[in-house]
């Protein structure tokens, strides 16, 4: 039968179901098909903190959103054009996000009175008019899957499990996705269980055929491949990119990598990933707690390894004292904070940028720590390498501030060439560094005049035996010193060292060069801010955008950039932490725009707000 094929420039799809329904896997597969097809894309998983919240409840709904387009895009999209809901709870939990006219594909199987009552629906929303503003395809996906698998030996329960693949098949037909990858994936994933592999493949194909052969849909869509810069690409999530960045950074520094970590959402993926790469000299230590994790990493750093610790806000709080010790010892250390909603346990699986001030100030004493923030999933790779650079060149702990949004979200990544990454080769001191009267003497705190870094002299080097510690040290010798002037000097020197770290100037995108308003962001808000800026510009209004990778020290030209604009707007997923720093440092009265919903900003809302600021100024 001939279906109409419509061209679209972009689509946002959200797949939602029980957390046991395999929604993340379905989303991953659809993403991979889309990547293989050549669209630009951006994804956002959203799952409950509970591993298996009771089936059919709102708390148990897990979803995956994918935005793909024939042009370059920056976010997973504000609101889905298409929602696939595998049960009533999934429909209810996501309904309020749908714009008028959206398409809903819903599995009607569980729309029983009891199941509906359980989530507070007294009538069936499919038939009572609740969905009248949407195009609804109400199908018994479960039954369709069971029918497709009727000839197999599988129990109904096992067969029913393949309904996510049925839905994926249907979606793949709707959006003309290539399917070989998914078929291959299923064969490999269930290689040990060929019956299950076949069932999933059959369900997938049946879903595709349902779209193709029934009249229910009538239309299928095409989104042409995007025009992206030439090169090799893959799709990558932030935590994976960050893990690869750490491995590559250690390799470029010619150091073994030692990770000390304690599991915590959303940072555990990095521990899992690094554990797989022992062949590259990556040692991973799952410690008894976060304090031991960073302690072991610091111990390894003393021994000449690239010490790394990974955690999220609550764990970073526990690590504070050891970060302070690393500041005092002046040893390289990379501290990764994949931020999540706080305070306390907060929202473990949701995103937030509320650890900036913790990273900046969350230690006793004057304990400056450089801070680097990635701006997108693939950028986590480069940001990790930058953190390694700063740590090893300046012999300092560095905090790498990622967050749940980019950690779990994914996008296509133009692949780097390992041998072309920056050369970070580290030189250990091998001989005493004293001169003149101090010839032959080792001075552990004699600094490089340019970087103010002290030498890295590792155990095993004869003639450089020395003792370091958290008690204030005398300049140059590193011996214990309680001398007031020395302490004043050392505090200021440590501050000057961090303040003097060379970081690239801030680049401003002021397309028309006549903007009066600058929107300044940091970290994962890059995508939403960029998308909002495009919307504003499409209306013919000028606006400038700049994004900070370095939060400490700030780029040297930041003050100049701020002074150039009449208004500076800072959107953040916290209550104004960067705004506070900028006001305090530059006396710029910025407009702080904040949101802490555990979700990234919506581009449309941000664009409206920016328009508001621009017109108020006139």
């Amino acid at each position, binding site marked *: 039968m001939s279906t109409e094929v419509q061209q679209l420039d972009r689509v946002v799809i959200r797949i939602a179901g029980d957390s046991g329904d395999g929604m993340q896997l379905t989303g991953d597969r659809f993403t991979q098909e889309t990547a293989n097809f050549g669209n630009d894309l951006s994804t956002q998983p959203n799952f409950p903190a509970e591993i298996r919240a009771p089936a059919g409840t709102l708390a148990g709904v897990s979803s995956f959103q994918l935005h793909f387009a024939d042009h370059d895009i920056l976010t997973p999209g504000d609101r889905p054009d298409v929602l696939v809901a595998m049960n009533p709870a999934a429909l209810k939990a996501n309904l309020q996000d749908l714009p008028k006219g959206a398409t809903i594909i819903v599995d009607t199987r569980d729309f029983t009175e009891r199941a509906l009552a359980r989530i507070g629906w007294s009538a069936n929303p499919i038939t009572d008019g609740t969905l009248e503003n949407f195009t609804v395809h109400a199908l018994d996906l479960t039954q369709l899957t069971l029918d497709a698998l009727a000839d197999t030996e599988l129990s109904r329960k096992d067969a029913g499990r393949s309904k996510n693949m049925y839905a994926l098949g249907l979606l793949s037909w709707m959006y003309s996705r290539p399917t070989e990858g998914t078929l291959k994936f299923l064969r490999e994933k269930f290689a040990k269980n060929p019956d299950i592999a076949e069932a999933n493949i059959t369900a997938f194909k049946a879903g595709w055929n349902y779209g193709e052969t029934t009249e229910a849909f009538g239309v299928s869509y095409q989104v042409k491949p995007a025009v992206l810069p*030439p090169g090799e690409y*893959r799709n990558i999530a932030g935590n994976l990119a960050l893990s690869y960045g750490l491995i590559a950074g250690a390799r470029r520094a010619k150091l073994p990598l030692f990770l000390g970590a304690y599991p915590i959402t959303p940072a555990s993926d990095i521990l899992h990933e690094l554990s797989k790469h022992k*062949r590259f*000299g990556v040692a991973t230590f799952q410690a008894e707690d976060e*304090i*031991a994790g960073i302690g072991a990493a610091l111990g390894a750093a003393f021994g000449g390894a690239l010490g790394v610790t990974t955690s999220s806000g609550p764990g970073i709080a526990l690590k504070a004292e050891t970060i302070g010790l690393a500041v005092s010892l002046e040893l390289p250390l990379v501290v990764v904070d994949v931020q999540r909603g706080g305070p306390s346990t907060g929202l473990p699986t949701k995103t937030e940028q509320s650890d900036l001030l913790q990273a900046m100030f969350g230690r006793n004493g004057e304990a400056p720590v450089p801070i680097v923030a990635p701006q997108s999933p693939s950028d986590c790779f480069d940001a990790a390498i930058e953190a390694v650079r700063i740590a090893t060149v300046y012999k300092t702990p560095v905090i790498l501030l990622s967050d749940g949004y980019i950690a779990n979200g994914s996008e296509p990544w133009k692949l780097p060439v390992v041998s072309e990454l920056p050369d970070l080769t580290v030189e250990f001191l091998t001989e005493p560094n004293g001169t003149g009267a101090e010839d032959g003497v080792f001075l552990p705190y004699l600094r490089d005049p340019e970087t103010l870094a002290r030498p890295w002299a590792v155990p*095993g080097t004869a003639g450089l*035996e020395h*003792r370091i*510690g958290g008690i204030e040290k005398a300049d140059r010798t590193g011996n214990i010193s309680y001398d007031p002037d020395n302490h004043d000097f050392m505090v200021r020197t440590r501050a000057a060292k961090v303040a003097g770290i060379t970081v690239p100037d801030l680049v401003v995108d002021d397309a028309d060069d006549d903007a009066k308003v600058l929107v300044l962001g940091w970290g994962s808000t890059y995508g939403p801010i960029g998308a909002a800026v495009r919307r504003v510009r499409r209306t013919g209004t000028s606006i400038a955008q700049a994004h900070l990778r370095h939060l400490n020290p700030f780029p040297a030209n930041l003050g100049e950039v701020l002074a150039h604009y009449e208004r500076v707007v800072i959107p953040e997923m916290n209550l104004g932490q960067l705004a506070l720093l900028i006001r305090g440092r530059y006396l710029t009265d910025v407009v702080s725009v904040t949101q802490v919903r555990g979700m990234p900003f919506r581009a449309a809302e941000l664009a409206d707000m920016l328009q508001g600021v621009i017109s108020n100024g006139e």
Partner: protein
Amino acid sequence: MASELGLKAKDFKTDQEVRWCPGCGDYAILAAVQGFMPELGIPREDIVFISGIGCSSRFPYYMNTYGMHSIHGRAPAIATGLSTSRPDLKVFVVTGDGDALSIGGNHLIHALRRNVNLTILLFNNRIYGLTKGQYSPTSEQGKITKSTPMGSLDFPFNPVSLALGAEATFVGRTLDSDRKHLTTVLRAATEHRGTSLVEIYQNCNIFNDGAFDLIKDSDTKGEWIIPLEHGSEVRFGADNSKAVVRDPGNGALSVAEDVAPGDPRVVIHDAHSADPSYAFAISRLSQVDSRLSAMGVFRDVSRPSYDDLMNDQLDAARVKAEASNGTDDAALQSLIYGADSWTIQ
């Protein structure tokens, strides 16, 4: 004694002024350790002392080796990272009863259970010295201190029992003032592969003076020290008439008086017993009478050390990769490419 390397005790002294109170037991321990270092036959640059915070934790500043005076309680964790990433080094941890058993209790038991290659010297003065005399987790119940004017309420840890409970592979106990015994136990501890924990009774003459007098005083120590020597009967007291005996019925250990030579109930010390409950039972004798102290090596058994296991895994992964997917830049490049990359022309 001079070593093959020609090192002497004085080579392990630093130019830093030692700042413990005059008369502190820490001096004797420092002298014993410096004196025994040359025997190890390990070059100074391959030795590292890591400590936490406390009077005792100042120790690394006085040892002319590599050293780190870290933060309160965390030395075992820091040393774990150093030892596992640098198996070529000999890593010591110096800690106090507060450092190791209060704030750092968690790290201590986990280091012991993992059996990381560390020699841990726990200076037990049964008091917080550096913070000027509060009771510690090893202070006897009812102890009057600045923070417990009516007497402390908490029941104390027995560090040896605690370590054995954590399945430590080497546990010893010795005394600051008995240089010979101290050196013997330290020697055995440093020869052990895995974690060795040595509890060193240490007098704090300022805040808890005389805590160990009963076992120091030549008139009384014979009555209260239970000497442990592998393969020997556990006997003590005048004419060795007291002994640790095993109840033939239930296997329980106790101290008996007037035990005749050849009494079959007398325990023969077995530090190599695979089951830690024997050593644990010995350590509990002090709970029956707190004046009693078994001294020596309670347990010395072999179990693969965490560092060796980790390095075996690293080696195995590398060797396997060298024959398959590689370990070089190209291998990393192909890891980064993954299975699903695509080309845009």
